[in-house]
């Protein structure tokens, strides 16, 4: 279901393709043995190969190939057992050799698929054209000096996976969903940290507009947008910009644009008129890459359960809703946490405690699940106390707050604070009698029809019992007693 744009002259469909560059998790670079770790002093993680000194030669990193194959399998792609590295030739100071080693005509992965989880609960399949391996460039700093650019080659040669979607996306929302799903898969596989803000996942958006059912329009490329939110904003803006241009009688110029996140607009890049003739040809320093079918099979067998499969399983085995399952499987660590809590317990209860109470508290404290002060076992213990009637839901929340703050276990807190809920109808009855004895006027008002005073009475009883009375029983007994 696409979100059509209402123009002045009618409806427009947005056609979006995303090109993602994902930095591969590995110790060393794609073609050199220098380190990939982020944040080192300039040019300290650079080999002579990375700096393209005379006579230097590339040698391919086996693990980077493995990471690319795993990712290709994770996006349901076809792994090409034979692929070739090509040189992409252009001049730029952070591209020391004057060419980037990439893959052009025979990439390592073709034809993948991804399923988008949309807000209305539906899913939609989109195609992925290809995934290939290539070198990252170094960094050019233009702001260190008024007339000079400073170049750091630490990043030059780090392995990237370029993942190109088919132009199947039809809205900013879908683009966001695509990125979120892709990010989730990459993190599940451990092949990329996929953090756009840190720059290890970069996205170029190709946007065009057309009349529904009409031919494809001219597309513009919006480069290097560095968050999912900005991708969505950039697409929204660009689509409307193009519609306006066309409706005012102009034509969309095929060009590269940048997204100005401050102003929320896209701007044309002021580059020279030259055409980008990259003169691709197979890199003669490298032999074609030939993969063992058996090796690919073994990688496939060793893949972890991926988000879509996990979501399906959660819905089936734990009887969770699509929404709740979706919340849990976004990050593998969250899903694992949930399953540890849910083991041998009511999954619905586990789910709501994890997604509502725990996630809520972690978000507020700015912590990740790995930094949770409450372990799965501890949360499980709390849930057990609810299940066996020791705690009411309400009391459990109080105990949970205390667990977060002190790091102590539920049972310990209950014992310490004597927070066991009161379910003894006799005791509750006595507490109710005591409260009602002091509120004759209100009783009269209630009996006269002011039914919402029930809440007042419940509150008083809870207060009188330090919140320990089982609220359902209080309600039940109060109603009986008030009824006379």
């Amino acid at each position, binding site marked *: 279901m696409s979100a059509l744009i209402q123009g002045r002259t009618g409806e427009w469909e947005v056609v979006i393709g995303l090109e993602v560059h994902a930095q591969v998790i590995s110790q060393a670079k794609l073609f050199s*043995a220098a380190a990939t770790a982020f944040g080192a002093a300039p040019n300290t993680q650079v080999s002579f190969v990375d700096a393209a000194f005379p006579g230097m030669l590339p040698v391919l990193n086996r693990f980077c190939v493995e990471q690319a194959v795993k990712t290709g399998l994770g996006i349901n792609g076809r792994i090409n057992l034979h692929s070739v590295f090509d040189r992409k030739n252009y001049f730029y100071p952070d591209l020391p050799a004057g060419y980037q080693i990439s893959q052009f005509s025979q990439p390592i992965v073709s034809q993948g698929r991804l399923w988008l989880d949309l807000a209305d609960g539906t899913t939609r399949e989109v195609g992925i054209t290809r995934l290939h391996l290539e070198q990252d460039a170094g960094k050019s700093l233009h702001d260190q000096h008024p007339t000079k650019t400073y170049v750091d080659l630490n990043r030059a040669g780090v392995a990237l996976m370029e993942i190109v979607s088919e132009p199947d996306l039809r809205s900013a929302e879908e683009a966001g969903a695509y990125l979120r799903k892709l990010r989730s898969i990459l993190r599940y596989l451990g092949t990329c940290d996929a953090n756009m803000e840190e720059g290890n996942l970069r996205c170029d958006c190709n946007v065009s507009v057309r009349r529904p059912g009409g031919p494809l329009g001219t597309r513009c490329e919006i480069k290097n947008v560095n968050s999912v939110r900005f991708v969505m904003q950039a697409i929204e803006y660009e689509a409307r910009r193009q519609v306006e241009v066309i409706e005012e009688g102009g034509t969309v110029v095929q060009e590269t644009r940048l997204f100005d996140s401050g102003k929320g607009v896209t701007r044309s890049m002021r580059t020279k008129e030259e055409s980008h003739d990259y003169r691709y040809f197979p890199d003669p320093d490298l032999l074609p890459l030939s993969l063992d079918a058996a090796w690919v099979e073994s990688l496939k067998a060793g893949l972890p359960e991926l988000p879509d499969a996990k979501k399906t399983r959660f819905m089936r085995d734990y009887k969770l809703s699509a929404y709740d399952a979706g919340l849990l499987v976004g990050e593998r660590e969250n899903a694992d946490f949930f399953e540890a809590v849910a083991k041998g317990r009511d999954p619905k209860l586990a789910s709501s405690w994890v997604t509502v109470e725990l996630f809520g508290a972690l978000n507020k404290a700015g912590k990740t699940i790995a930094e949770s002060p409450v372990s799965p076992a501890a949360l499980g213990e709390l849930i057990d106390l609810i299940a066996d009637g020791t705690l009411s839901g309400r009391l459990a929340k109080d105990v949970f707050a205390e667990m977060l703050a002190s790091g102590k276990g539920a049972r310990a807190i209950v014992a310490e604070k004597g927070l066991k809920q009161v379910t003894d109808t006799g005791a509750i009855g006595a507490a109710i009698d005591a409260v009602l004895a002091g509120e004759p006027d209100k009783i009269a008002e209630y009996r006269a029809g002011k039914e919402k005073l029930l809440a007042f009475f419940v509150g008083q009883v809870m207060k009188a019992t330090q919140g320990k009375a089982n609220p359902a029983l209080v309600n039940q007994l109060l109603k009986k007693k008030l009824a006379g």
Partner: protein
Amino acid sequence: MALDKATVARIAALARIKVPETEVDTLAGELSKILTWVEQLNEIDVAGVEPMTAVTLARSPLREDHVADGGIVDKILANAPETANGFFVVPKVVE
């Protein structure tokens, strides 16, 4: 294939080589002659022939994922015409 001056200028720009105006004509002539000479390959029928992408028939050797290089910033910068604070320095790029 005869190359005109505009083509020579375009190729020289792609290759980032400044060719003095006084040399363009001669250069265009030389390049044209060479290209015409190599076009004798047009006589050959290569239907069904694979391009020779690698001279040897071996498979790509693969390297283990260990850090065994880098950490040599002084050597990396030692031959540079201009450096500052560990960076290479070039005239500013207009973006």
